[in-house]
């Protein structure tokens, strides 16, 4: 399996890595059992994400996709950050191996989870349907199916 130059760059030199003591929103997604957890911290001023940090337990692409996702939402209005798609993260990274695409989904979910937390903490109303419910079983069940289906084919 080969990672693109961009993936290796974001893995080896992750942007916005670390924790944030005074975060306005914190989102954690993933599952240690499946091998990846992302935790994202955002600082919000006037509906703008002025700062973002992340910590990730996971493989090279999990770290790279979290790093790229933070780059893509930093300085952006929340409305724009909510539109960040896993596809956009993958494209910005110059592609991911098929088995690693779920990492990009996690990155998208981590951003949304942090924003949801910010909304919750500040009593801001939102449409619950645009967020994942924090239960990763759905995404991971899909991944498992996919992985096993693939194994059957080989």
């Amino acid at each position: 399996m080969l990672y693109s130059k961009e993936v290796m760059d974001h893995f080896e030199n992750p942007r916005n890595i670390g924790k944030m003591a005074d975060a306005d929103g914190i989102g954690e997604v993933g599952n240690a059992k499946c091998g990846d957890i992302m935790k994202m911290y955002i600082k919000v001023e006037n509906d703008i994400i002025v700062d973002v940090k992340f910590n990730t337990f996971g493989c090279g692409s999990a770290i790279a996709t979290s790093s790229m996702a933070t780059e893509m939402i930093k300085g952006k209005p929340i409305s724009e950050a909510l539109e960040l798609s896993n596809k956009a993260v993958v494209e910005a990274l110059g592609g991911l191996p098929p088995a690693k695409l779920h990492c990009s989904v996690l990155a998208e979910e981590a951003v949304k989870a942090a924003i949801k937390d910010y909304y919750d903490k500040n009593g801001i109303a939102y449409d619950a349907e645009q967020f994942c419910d924090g239960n990763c079983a759905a995404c991971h069940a899909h991944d498992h199916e996919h992985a096993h289906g693939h194994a059957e084919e080989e």
Partner: protein
Amino acid sequence: MRVYADNAATTRMSETAIAAMLPYMDKIYGNPSSLHSFGQEAAEVLQQARETVAGLLGAESREIYFTSGGSEADNMAIISAARLGAKKGKKHIISSRIEHHAVLHTLDKLKKEGYEITLLEVGREGRVKAEDVAAAIRPDTALVTIMYANNEIGTIQPIKEIGAICKEKGVIFHTDAVQAVGHLDINVKEQNIDMLSLSAHKFHGPKGVGALYCRRGLILTNIIEGGGQERGKRGGTENIPAIVAAAAAMKEACENIEKHAIYVSALRDRLIKGLAHIPHAVVNGSGEKLPGIANFCFEGIEGESLLLLLNKDGIAASSGSACTSGSLDPSHVLLALGLPHEVAHGSLRISLCHYNTIEEVDHIIASVPKVVDYLRDISPVWEALMEGERPHVI
């Protein structure tokens, strides 16, 4: 510094093996099946190679079948024993949870054909108990297949005891000895081994060549049909350069087993001691082990990122993390030890050989804690462990 510490994956060819194969590319290049002198020269060296391999295993030359490697030998042995059993109405096979996929996937295939498979547990130690083998044998057991030594954690299995039990009960005993040949003393007769798989590239021979030892009297099933090579059991013109080099490498390795074991196990022990200060880490598998393999789990981190960062430091190692296997599940071997998924994801296998040096091992000792610290520092799992939100497992 660039350090190759993945010798359980494959090894660098020895100078002896390289020198051995060269004449068989442009000087003696006949087809051993040809009647002319070119062919007969090749047939003669093929026979010599077969005698060398047989001699080093305590077998007879006609009991050695050259294959494309360990996987083919495993497939051939298991399929053959299964077919022999079926003829007598025996369709039960005993193996273990820590076998190589060449064994486990072949057993999966047989399961779909109606065979019943018992996979023995190995416990935290990573070792099959001979008494468990004895207890699992039934009147309809066709085969016991247990690896000689495990490729991920290095644990050596009680082969002689299992061989004695199988002999007593009249069950065919196959061992996947891919990690053991050239590293441990093996005698198929003394150990009552009916079938044994080996692969040359694990003992500094070339890739793409291996052998199956099959005791005289056991009838093999062809996996590859062809022109009657290998006593009619494995079609395809023999890869003479590779076979000759395999025999040369095996001879060299077997003649130096003790010398290399002393040197390599000292390096391994230095490594384990040098990394012992890392908290919440464990060395996987215990008891008698291969000299070169050390397998660790580091809590709170994931193996693929560990490997990539070690690679940046010039260190080539391996991991049983899901991400390095292309599936979502971590190594079946580490799970069989009873390690939870999240711990098994954080595994690192360092496998050394006699080409490694103390300086190289010291480079690994310097690099691993640095990388583990960094990955723990950015890991939310480690954070949760440190804050007591998650219980430590190791």
